[in-house]
């Protein structure tokens, strides 16, 4: 789980942060904080599905479920089981 958190956090930093000085934690609000918009969630979902060989149903990939790295990892773990 710790490894997954770091992988997801690093992906979010590389993918979405324009300002290199900005700091993100596992609990930083990504969607509600304006870091990831609804369009950009698509690439995050596809990244998770490809990386962990899972399929997340569209109705589960909600802005709430994708709002922090911790929540994202919890969602991925549901489909890993």
């Amino acid at each position, binding site marked *: 789980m710790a490894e997954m958190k770091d992988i997801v956090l690093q992906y979010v930093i590389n993918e979405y942060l324009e300002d290199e000085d900005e700091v993100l934690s596992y609990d930083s609000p990504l969607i509600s904080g304006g870091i990831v918009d609804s369009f950009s969630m*698509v690439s995050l979902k*596809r990244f998770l599905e490809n990386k962990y060989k899972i399929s997340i149903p569209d109705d589960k990939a909600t802005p709430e479920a994708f709002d922090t790295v911790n929540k994202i990892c919890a969602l991925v773990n549901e489909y890993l089981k």
Partner: protein
Amino acid sequence: MAYSDKIRGIYTGTLNEIKDKGIFKQERPIHSAQAADIVVEFPMGSDLKKVINMCANNYLGLSSHPDVIKAAHEGLDSRGYGMSSVRFICGTQDIHKELEAKVTKFLGTEDTILFPSCMDANAGVFEAILTSEDVMISDRLVHASIIDGMRLCAALHDTFKHSDMAHLEEKLQLHADKRLKVVITDGVFSMDGDTAKLDEMVALCEKYDAMLFVDESHSSGFIGKTGRGTHEKCGVVGKIDIITTTFGKALGGASGGCVSGRKELVEMCRQKARPYLFSNTIAPVVVSGVNVVLDILSKSTERRDKLEKNTDFWRKGLTEAGFVLKEGDTPIVPVMLFNAKLSQDFSKALYEEGVYAIGFFFPVVPQGQARIRTQVSAGHEIHHLEKALEAFIKVGKKFDILGKTKQEIIAMYGN
């Protein structure tokens, strides 16, 4: 009465929120034709003032060109005022077909379809050519009308960092399984004035079997050696699959737009694009004007050459005066001020000095990147630009930003 006090209160509250945030937009009536010198009423109800216009999209100075006006008069006389029909019922005239053929030739594409505006072209094109099996991969700074068009389309949508070709390649690999892939960009980006790397994008699209879409609204008529657009500048004429552009900027400045590109894609728009199917097309008077605009531009590069010289003069003058500019070589020259209030105060001070240029700030541009977006025109003479430069320098001194770096301006005014 359906419009109750409760309903009115909701809208009044929302409008007050917009005002409180300082982003309430107000129109500034112009009491003259669009040109380098205009007569403006600002604020509404105040005395009229003659000012130099530094913020129009009138790049080639054709908005009030006598030959274009004459052609519009002739079009009005010979083809009437309106069509009272959509294209496929009884709303297509010979001059509409003539314009589509001229645009195709001018842009070096296979076919063209007119739309009431480029906003409509962008709103209609994606839904007409893509399905849920496909993906759209867009630059993160594309124009709002493209974003709206993508929202109306069932295809998956992803983005790549602005002009970042490595990131675009990652996205093309990520979506390799999709039936169709379209890479989407502006040719010249309207807020920053920078140019898309179309040569590299064409190479990537060829490598990953993707189509390339370019909005040329801020390029058609003046970018490239003969003004064909960004694709000419980048040496990829004939290799762009979909071009959208407007007749509301350099190409006469009235209204209207088009989709130009691969013939099958254009035909798909004729069959399925909703703004084409359910709205009248461009009025005959405007079509007649644009037909002559394209004749003027096909005969001579004089106007785009003058625009290039004016742009060099303007960029050099501002740079030497010590302003922070967004780098580039297009007639869109953003003077960076970073702070939203400073951009508004600067614009007001310029107006007092006889120069009309607007401050842009979040959400039109990213937070902390407020600016005065200046736009150069072939309609400007050097004396206009000299006078405008004097005003910029005077106002720059007043706010003590000349020769200051981004960090120093932010330290003085915040961002």
